[in-house]
Structure formats: C-alpha cells, structure tokens
C-alpha cells in the first residue's frame, strides 16, 4: 500500500530512454507515401489559378490534391462558434483565397519526402496579393474582411457583468486608469512537430496513427469533415512528443493525409510537419489587448471593481475558438476578492496563424491582466507589491466567485510566505536598495496565478447556446486478462505527463499489489482502449478525471473479484484480502493459507466457466468506469455557473536586473511555489512545474511570433523564434504546499499548465526595476530591444492616470 504519493520511477521511461518510443513519424512501412504540403507565401491573397501539370510528371508522385478535390470530397470543419463563425469555410486546403501565411494550398503524395517536395515546388500557383490586416483593432473596422462569407472579422462579442460596478466606482477612494495593455503571441512549440500516418482502406475505414492530443474531440470533427460515420475512424496515438494544447488542432492536417491515401488507392500516407510549418500554421497562443481599464480601490488599496475592454486576436480561423472568449472567466477575479466586474470581450480574426489552446489557454492572458492591474495599482498607490496582494487575496474556501465558479481550496498567503523564504525576499530587498544607490536597475516581482482544471464544457454554451457540449468525463477500463495480468486502458492519450505510471500507482494501492504487475496501455486507441467524447490530455485534469476513472474502475473490478473469490474459496467476502503471494497477485482468506491467484480467477471467468454458479453470470473481470464531475449547465444568459472543478495555484517570485548597457533583463533569482492539492507522484508534479516555468520564462523573455504588416511571420524558424535553452534559464527554487481539494476523491487538483506564472512575475519584476525610470509595464514580452525601446519614451505619464478622493 501507499504507492500514491511516491515518486515512482516512470514506466514510460523504459522505452523512451532506449529510443524505443513510437512517435507518429516513427511508423514507417515499405511502400508508404509521404505528403508534402504546399503553403501560401502570402498573408492574404486570392488564388487565381493552380496548375499541377508539371508536378504530375515527376516520377514517384502518386497523387496531388488541390482545393478543387477538397471541395468535392469534404465538408467544411464544424466551427464551435455561433454566427458568423458558422459562415467561415474551414477546409484542409484553401480554395479561392489564402488568409494566412503558411495556409495549405496543395498537397503531393510521393514515394519519398524529397520527391514529394520536389514535385510540390513544381506546382504553379498564381496569386493576386490582397492587403492584409494584422492589427486586431484595425481588423474590427472590417475595412478588410478576411472571410467574405462571414461578412465581418468580429467573431464573438459578450459582456461579462457582475455585482454593482457603478456603485463601486462611485464609492471608490482611488480610481486607476490604464489605457492599453497587450499580451503577445507565442506558443508551446513542442519538440515533436505534428505528424500523422493515415490509411483509407478499401473497406472505407480510415486508420490514423497521429499525435493529436484530444482525439475524443478530433474524431467528432474529422468524421463529418471527411463525410464518413465516426465508427469508420480508428484514432490512435502512442507516444506524443509534447503538445501543450497546440496539437489539439492538427486534425485539419490529419484530414489531408487521409484524403491523399484515398486518392492513391488506399496506400498509407505519412505527413510530418517541418519546424517552419509548425511555427507558421500549427497553432499560436491567443494574443490579447486590454483597453480602457478602470480600477476602483478603497482607501487601503483593496480593489473593489474593474471595468475593461478586451480584444482577443484568434488569427485567421476560429476552430477551437471562440471558446477562449469564455474560458478566461474560469479565473475572473484571479486570486483576489474583487466582486464587481464589467468586461466587454470581443474576438477578432486577423491574417495571422490560427490560434490553438496553448498551455494556460485563455486564463493565462486574463491572469496576466489581473496581475498587471494589481501591480500597477500597488506602484501608483505606493503599496509594496507583497502587501498589496495580502490585502486582496481570497482567504476563505470554498470561495464562490462573482460569476459562480467555486475555488475549491488554497492558501495564497502561505504560498507567498514560502516563496519569499525560498528566494530570500528581505535580503534581496536590501540588496536592491543598495544597488539602486549605485544606479543599477534591480526589481523584485511577484506573480500569483491559478491553474483551473477539469473544465465544465457547459461553458461552451455561454459562447454558443446551441452547442451540444457540457460536463466532462474520462474513462478507464480494467480487466484481468486470460493469464491473470492486470490490463488498464484509458482515453487520455498523454504527451509526457506519465499517465501510465500514475494510473499504475492508483491500481497498485487498490489491489494491494506492485505497480510493476500492472500493464497500462500507452496512448489513445479507439479500437483497443476505452474513451469518451471528452477524452484527451488538456485543461489540467488527469489527476482528477483520469485517476477518478481509474479508481472507479478498480472498485467495480474488486467487487467482481471478491464475488468470484468468495465462491471459489467458499469464504465470506469480508474475510478476503487482496495481496501478493508466492504465485503472484492473489486474494486470500485472512488468517488461513486459502488463496486464489489472478490466473485462477481469470481462468474460471474466461475459460473454465462451467465450474461457476449462475449467480456469477455478471462477473466478467472486465469493467469500464466513466467518471463524470458533478457539473450543471451554466446560466448562459447571466454567464454564471461553476466552470471548473479544481484550482491549483502558483506563486512565483523573480529578481531581475536590467543591464544598463545592453538592456538585457537578467534573472538573478527565481522561486516557484506550487499547490496542486495532494500529490500523486511528487516528481512528476515538480517536473510539470519546472516545465511550465520554463515555457513562461521563454515567452516572457525570448519567444514571440512577430508579423509584419503584410502578414509575413518574421520568426518562423527556431533561430528567430528563440526557444529557451539551458543557457537562458535561471536556476529555479521549487517549493510546494498541499491544500487538498474537497472536490476530488484523492484531494488532488489537476495541474500542468501553470497559469503562465513567469509572464506575470517577469512583468512585475521589470516594472519594479524600471518604475523609477518612468516605466509602466503594459507588454508581456521583455526582450532587450523591447526594453530599450520602451525606455526611450517612458510611458508612465500617458499610460496611467490616478484619481484619488
């Protein structure tokens, strides 16, 4: 007993450290075809003609797809949003017009990747360049309409109003006004690019081995798009080389592999994306602009109300959007007790890469906004950043937010105290003062964030009341196989989170056996493994949804095992105990030498059942459990309801020195304290914190998707995008507290996304370092050139106004 809570070495590692993983691109068979996708070099252009005749003559080419083929064989992918989203024609290839750089225009399947690429370059596409719109506020003017059928670029608008905002402003001691803030565009950039092997068999079935990370959802989009019943799809993943949410949206490209297989007579077709294709078109994180923010505060600096206008830029297609227009409201007040809100939220299309739900999806942007609000108000009112937070933190749990979400548990002041201790807060404050005297720019910044997990898909109905999605689920099946081995399958399809290990830990405790005696089947497999429509790895939920399903399945299996063993051993169920004996896992009669091992149990259930009594007819030793969190459909009119089950929290502190010659923001010290409730596998949880911290630091300091006015992506290789390396990342002091969730059976909270904490923390520290230079941080990206430019025209006088009574 007691495997849960231990840092058990991961089962997945056995194959991965030997190079024996099975990533989608590893699946190579003799005679398979390779797909090359020809993509638009322009951000916005009309396709005047496509001539494939030269490409067709290249030896080794099996087939070529163009928009005309696609239009004849596919239906546009379902868009989740209401009008005008449903008027956006989203097909795997552009037909009449391209709307972002990197959009697929044609595809070639050939006997080798090189031949496919050679032929692709012989496809002659004549474009008529159109003016592009990359600025979201410009796009809202609809002077350039990206999707003509939709008639407008504005894809969603809603007002989120709670409490009595006018009264709070009338009663305020201080009102702080912030003109404009901007959260930049970046992405998780998993090291494995998108890849997919598809085979459209002559029996009309389509088999996918891919790295999509939400296959329960992808199947529901691909089947109608490809005009096949969903049962014809075999959806499969094995090892996935990171996803960070981005790989949720690669179904668009999976369709191309399938269509090329169909057109080539059922040959297997592999598509492997290049890094540049990935950066151009695989999916970016949402970019967001916050305008006309007004903050009401009482005389003590307690925030009482916030008014603001948010514009989210989703790039050229909506796809998983406009879900992000509601998802952020899972963390409406962040970690603070603000009760009155008026947020006017708009989402707009631009000629940039479409977004995908990137790690910290939509909440991270809003949490950054809230942390900037708290921090700017603190600086303007002369309240220390730590004190400002202590005055505003939510302290009583469970806590119902103004929009009906329930924060399950937490202790933000304890996290702050722990992070201050880890970093040596008081000593750094002193060193900062001394450095200031020498004219050096050192700042300390705090970021407090939430990682809301296990989402209620009912929130999708706030975005589109006609959408038939709500609740959430994950599934586990567990069986004793013929030889008595314990086989577990799940629908989660992880991408590095160690689900095989964590599930084994839970089963081992339930059956009182060793985790090595349990086989958890890797990946997602719609034929072999179990799944539901919510199955996937996303939204920080496995520790709750996945493990609750595993736990529930164990209870069902144990019940049957007890029934069967009781019959076989002629003993009462209450006298039986689970454990391991000389012949492996077994059930034994307590205090006797009577026992039956798993092989015998399985044998009588599966192959020797004439010995059984009729009363055991339902005993199959093969059970399935669906975990459904206790959600209701939210009140869509009031935008009110519980949108997530658990709220993990992060508290980070950074000490940053901005070099006065190079303007490089160097991190001198960094602490990350996490609370995800009870830990299942502490080493895996810590690893997720390190990884999320690294992503956030990369985004805050280095990584950005920059577009020029014509819609050209200027950072489309790793050399330009600058993912964070071992030379750029500071040493991170990691700490943890555990406030068990009352809403999960195991007290765990879903985790892994990390709330984008480093973005908030770095912004806060840079502002602390440069506030005396007249700088208010209103941007989330802090490269040296960006800091240099901002210091040329310090913005404090124009960016912020404070009215005090």
């Amino acid at each position, binding site marked *: 007993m007691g495997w849960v809570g231990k840092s058990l070495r991961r089962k997945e590692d056995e194959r991965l450290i030997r190079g024996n993983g099975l990533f989608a691109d590893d699946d190579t068979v003799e005679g398979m075809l390779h797909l090359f996708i020809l993509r638009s070099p322009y951000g916005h252009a009309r396709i005047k003609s496509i001539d494939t005749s030269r490409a067709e003559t290249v030896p080794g080419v099996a087939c070529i797809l163009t928009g005309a083929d696609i239009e004849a064989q596919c239906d546009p992918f379902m868009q989740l949003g209401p009008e005008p989203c449903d008027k956006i024609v989203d097909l795997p290839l552009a037909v009449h017009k391209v709307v972002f750089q990197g959009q697929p225009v044609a595809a070639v399947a050939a006997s080798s990747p090189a031949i496919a690429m050679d032929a692709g370059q012989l496809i002659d596409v004549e474009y008529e360049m159109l003016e592009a719109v990359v600025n979201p506020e410009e796009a809202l003017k609809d002077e350039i309409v990206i999707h003509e059928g939709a008639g407008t670029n504005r894809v969603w608008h809603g007002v989120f109003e709670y409490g009595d905002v006018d009264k709070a402003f009338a009663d305020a001691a201080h009102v702080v006004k912030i003109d404009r803030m901007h959260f930049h565009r970046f992405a998780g950039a*998993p090291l494995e*690019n998108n890849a997919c092997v598809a085979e459209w068999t002559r029996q009309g079935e389509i088999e996918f081995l891919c790295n999509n990370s939400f296959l329960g959802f992808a199947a529901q989009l691909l089947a109608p798009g490809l005009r096949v019943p969903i049962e014809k799809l075999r959806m499969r993943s094995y090892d996935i080389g990171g996803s960070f949410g981005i790989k949720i949206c690669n179904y668009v490209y999976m369709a191309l592999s399938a269509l090329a297989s169909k057109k080539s007579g059922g040959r297997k077709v592999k598509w492997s994306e290049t890094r540049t294709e990935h950066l151009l078109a695989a999916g970016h994180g949402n970019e967001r602009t916050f305008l006309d923010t007004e903050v009401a505060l009482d005389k003590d600096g307690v925030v009482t109300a916030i008014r603001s206008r948010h514009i989210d830029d989703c790039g050229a297609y909506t796809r998983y959007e406009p879900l992000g227009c509601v998802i952020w409201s899972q963390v409406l007040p962040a970690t603070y007790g603000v009760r009155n809100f008026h947020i006017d939220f708009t989402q707009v299309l631009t000629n940039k890469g479409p977004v995908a739900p990137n790690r910290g999806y939509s909440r991270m942007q809003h949490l950054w906004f809230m942390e900037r609000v708290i921090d700017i108000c603190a600086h303007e009112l002369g309240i220390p950043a730590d004190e400002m937070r202590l005055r505003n933190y939510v302290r009583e749990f469970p806590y119902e937010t103004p929009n009906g979400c329930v924060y399950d548990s937490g202790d933000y002041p304890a996290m702050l105290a722990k992070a201050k201790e880890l970093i040596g807060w008081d000593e750094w404050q002193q060193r900062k003062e001394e450095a200031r005297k020498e004219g050096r720019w050192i700042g300390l910044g705090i970021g407090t964030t939430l990682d809301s997990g296990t989402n209620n898909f009912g929130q999708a109905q706030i975005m589109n009341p006609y959408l038939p999605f709500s609740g959430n689920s994950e599934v586990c099946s567990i069986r004793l196989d013929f030889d008595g081995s314990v086989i577990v399958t799940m629908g989660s399809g992880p991408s590095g989170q160690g689900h095989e290990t964590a599930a084994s830990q839970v089963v081992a405790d339930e059956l009182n056996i060793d985790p090595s005696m349990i086989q958890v089947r890797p990946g997602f497999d719609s034929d072999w493994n179990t799944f539901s429509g919510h199955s996937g790895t996303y939204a920080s939920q496995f520790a709750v949804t996945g493990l609750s399903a595993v736990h529930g399945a164990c209870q069902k299996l144990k019940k049957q095992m007890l029934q069967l063993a009781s019959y076989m051993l002629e003993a009462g169920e209450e006298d039986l105990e689970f454990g391991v004996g000389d012949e492996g896992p077994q059930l034994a009669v307590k205090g006797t030498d009577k026992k039956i091992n798993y092989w015998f149990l399985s044998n009588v259930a599966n192959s020797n059942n004439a010995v059984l009594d009729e009363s055991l007819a339902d005993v199959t030793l093969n059970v399935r459990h669906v975990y459904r969190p206790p959600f209701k459909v939210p009140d869509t009119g009031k935008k009110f309801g519980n949108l997530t089950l658990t709220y993990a929290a992060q508290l980070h502190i950074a000490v940053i020195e901005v070099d006065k010659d190079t303007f490089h923001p160097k991190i001198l010290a960094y602490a990350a304290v996490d609370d995800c409730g009870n830990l299942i596998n502490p080493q895996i949880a810590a690893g997720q914190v390190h990884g999320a911290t690294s992503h956030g630091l990369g985004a805050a300091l280095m990584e950005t998707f920059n577009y020029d006015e014509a819609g050209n992506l200027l950072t489309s290789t790793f050399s330009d995008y600058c993912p964070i390396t071992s030379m750029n990342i500071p040493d991170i002091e990691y700490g943890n507290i555990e406030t068990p969730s009352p809403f999960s059976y195991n007290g765990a909270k879903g985790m892994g996304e990390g709330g984008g904490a480093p973005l908030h923390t770095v912004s806060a520290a840079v502002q602390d370092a440069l506030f005396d230079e007249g700088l208010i941080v209103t941007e989330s990206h802090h490269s040296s050139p960006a800091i240099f430019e901002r210091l040329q025209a310090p913005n404090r006088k124009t960016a912020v106004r404070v009215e005090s009574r």
Partner: protein
Amino acid sequence: MSQPVKISVKVNGKRYEREVEPRLLLVQFIREQLQLTGTHIGCDTTYCGACTILMNGLPVKSCTVLAVQADGGEILTVEGLEKDGKLHPLQEAFSEHHGLQCGYCTPGMLMSAFYLLQKIEEPTHEDIRKGIQGNLCRCTGYKNIYTSITDASKKMREGA
C-alpha cells in the same frame, strides 16, 4: 535525381552497406533505412539537437550532415548506449531523476551528455549547461536534466 551512391557505415558496432541518394540526410538514413527511430527530428535547421548522434566520436546534428559524409565512419546512436542488457548510467539517471517527460529530446540529449562526460569526468553545473546548450527540451525546464547528468557522472566515477 542523381545516381545513388554506395556507402559503408558502422552504426552501433554493426556494419551497414547501402545505396543512398547523395542528398539523403544522415538522420533520414538512420531513421528510414536502418529503422533506428530513436534519433528524432525536431527542427531541420540544426537548432534543436533532437537528432544528435556521435559520428567518429564527435557529437553532430544528423539533420545537417549528408549520409554520404558518414561513409567509412562510425556512428553511435541512442540505441547503442545499452550494453549487454545493461542501461548506460545516463539512461538510468534520466529515468531516476525524471530528466525526461515526453522523451522526444531525450535521445539527442543523452548523446550530448554522453560526449560531455567523455570529455569532462566531473562536470560543473556550468559545464553541463554548456554541454547541452545545443539541445532543446520543451518539457522539463532542464532542471532535472542537470541533476540526471550530475548523478550519472558520479555513478560513472564510482564505477557503477
């Protein structure tokens, strides 16, 4: 298309003779022709290091070397680290200290670390940072990778 070229390469101690297109990348040769798919491709611009292997004892990014350049040479890939059913101390340490999550960067990371420990028996924290600066990891934040390499170097010095 140019005429195929015959090459002879020793990979993980085994000699292979193959005809390859002159433009075939070494990583494609290793993955597709030899079916050693432990070596991965992450960027095609020599940035990410997922394809790192040892060629004639030196670490190279095999996405930027042609297969024909390896003719007559010796190559070590991740599949060659395990000896007689015994994992290399680096492989043990990466698993022990959770130095991998998705495992996609791991083969390249192991090969860079392998070279580092051949060059420097007792690397400092800075040595390790520099030793793996050409290998991106998007999952771990590198922290547990440093711990893994430090621990492996200790075990190797102790002769484990």
